[in-house]
């Protein structure tokens, strides 16, 4: 599903947010990415989600080498293959939960009536079938994040990327959101979750640990830190 090799990301000012990350995530995995603040987790997720291109190295998503895709093609890739969930939800204020979710396929060429129908199904799937006409400000934090998840998955993308989806939620709502993500995983979606919550990460099948822009631990296989250092 995802293959990163020797990916680096250098920001203006010389910050090495990623320095030579290689990572393979198979279809159907549920992966936690953990690490201290500033270790490059969000940067990596942006690269995985094709929102940003690596400075060097290669990234391939669902068989596409993103270096060879134009901005338009990357947009089409995101529209059809990738769902995002953000810590800040990013719901449109003043629009009902239903219409927020329906926007999930706005750029997928699906007519409005069909989008609304699928949004209804997605909201039921995240347990908000009774909140379809509420505006974001009438929903709790946990409910908002579930609306955001419904929007991300209403088009059935094979890949779901979540950057600290529970970061703004209390424990109970966070657990609800995690249970929902597990359900989606069980239904076949590949999911990558960034989290600060150690306990939460430990409950997931695979953990990738990052520090200073490098992968320093991966429960799927043992990294070779010595070799990494030798390259520099």
């Amino acid at each position: 599903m995802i293959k990163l090799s020797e990916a680096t990301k250098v920001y203006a000012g010389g910050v090495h947010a990623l320095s030579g990350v290689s990572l393979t995530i198979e279809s159907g995995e549920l992966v936690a990415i953990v690490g201290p603040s500033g270790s490059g987790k969000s940067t990596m997720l942006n690269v995985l989600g094709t929102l940003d291109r690596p400075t060097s190295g290669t990234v391939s998503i669902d068989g596409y080498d993103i270096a060879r895709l134009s901005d338009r093609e990357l947009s089409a890739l995101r529209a059809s293959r990738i769902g995002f969930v953000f810590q800040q939800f990013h719901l449109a204020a003043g629009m009902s939960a239903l219409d927020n979710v329906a926007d999930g396929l706005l750029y997928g060429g699906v007519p409005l009536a069909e989008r609304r129908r699928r949004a209804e199904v997605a909201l039921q799937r995240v347990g908000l079938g009774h909140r379809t006409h509420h505006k974001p400000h009438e929903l709790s934090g946990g409910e908002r994040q579930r609306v955001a998840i419904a929007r991300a998955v209403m088009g059935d993308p094979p890949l779901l990327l979540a950057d600290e989806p529970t970061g703004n939620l209390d424990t109970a709502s966070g657990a609800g959101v995690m249970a929902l993500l597990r359900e989606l995983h069980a239904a076949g979606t590949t999911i990558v979750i960034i989290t600060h919550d150690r306990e939460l990460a430990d409950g997931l099948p695979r953990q990738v640990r990052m520090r200073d822009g490098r992968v320093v631990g991966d429960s799927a296989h043992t990294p070779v830190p010595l070799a990494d250092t030798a390259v520099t």
Partner: protein
Amino acid sequence: MAVVDPPRLVPARMRVRDIVRVGGVGLRTRPTRAFLSALGIAIGIAAMIAVVGISASSQAQLDRQLAALGTNLLTVTPGQTMFGEDAKLPPESEAMIGRIGPVTSVSAVGRVKGEKIYRTDKIPVVNTGGLATYAARVDLPATIGATVRNGTWLNGATARYPAVVLGATAAERLGIGRADPDRQILIGDVWFTVVGILDPVALAPELDSGALIGWEAAESYLGFDGYATVVFTRSDEDQVENVRNVLAATANPQAANEVDVSRPSDALSAKRAAGAAFTGLLLGLGGVALLVGGVGVANTMVISVLERRAEIGLRRSLGATRGQVRTQFLTESLLLSAMGGVGGVLLGAAVTIGYSTFQDWPFSVPFWSVSGGLGATLFIGGLAGLYPAIRASRLSPTEALTTP
């Protein structure tokens, strides 16, 4: 690598309905701001539509007037001789003009010189200077389109007796409201009975301040010399220019250069041209207002893009292409100015209706001004939205998403 290339990725086209919906998001979430920036455009367009509408309505009024009066009236007046003296029209000139083929009617007045007009024989209580006495042919009203407001016009009988018909201004100056067998005025030293009062004569305004008496009466009572000073003629509409060309030579074959020919309706038409120049100036001012409105829309759009960075980032993550983001903001700008344009056209039309109703003019807003106004609005909207839209589309998705 032996990997088979996956299928090409092509972004889906957005439906028009979705484009308009998405373009309207900003307007729906910030209605006050949308209203105010649309108002700027509306004021500019309303000003332009009202200027064009009012001027078109006033021209429609002039046209209506011209149509009622006819543009086929020509006047012949004596000019000056080669030695700078006042020329005279030969006595047979009226008959000669009547013999020109396309001429349909001829009439004349002759100025009776030196006879003052008084209301009484006592002290001249009213200043009657500026009033003139004319000998008039009986068929004058039909030819010049004059109408009697009160009383009657001269006939074959009254034209031989001391009877007078007053022009509208003359009646007012003399303080005479109605024709009346007992009402007499003094012209020179002869009492004339007021038999009628005319409405203002649009094509011969000099007669408004005149006292009109019969040709024979003028000769017998006031020593009138019998020379016509203005000959009026109507011709077939499509022959007016031809008649005009031969009129001077016909009126005075010996000295055509001593004859002046003019077309009174030209003065009314000249009013049109003068109005048009003034309209051009006002239209320019309206255009400036519209430009200012456009700057307002551009400002709103720039702010909108700044405020909605996170939304732009989200849309990119949902799969919006740069082009689709650009289209969204361009659409918003176009919707904003289109709203202003439609509002401005309605406002401008309302002002025109109000003003022309007040002036008792026919109402007219030319179609070209409405379509031109809306076209200008869309052009301004497109221009105002272009830069903000391009800026929005150039935002990197990650930077846009991380703005708080």
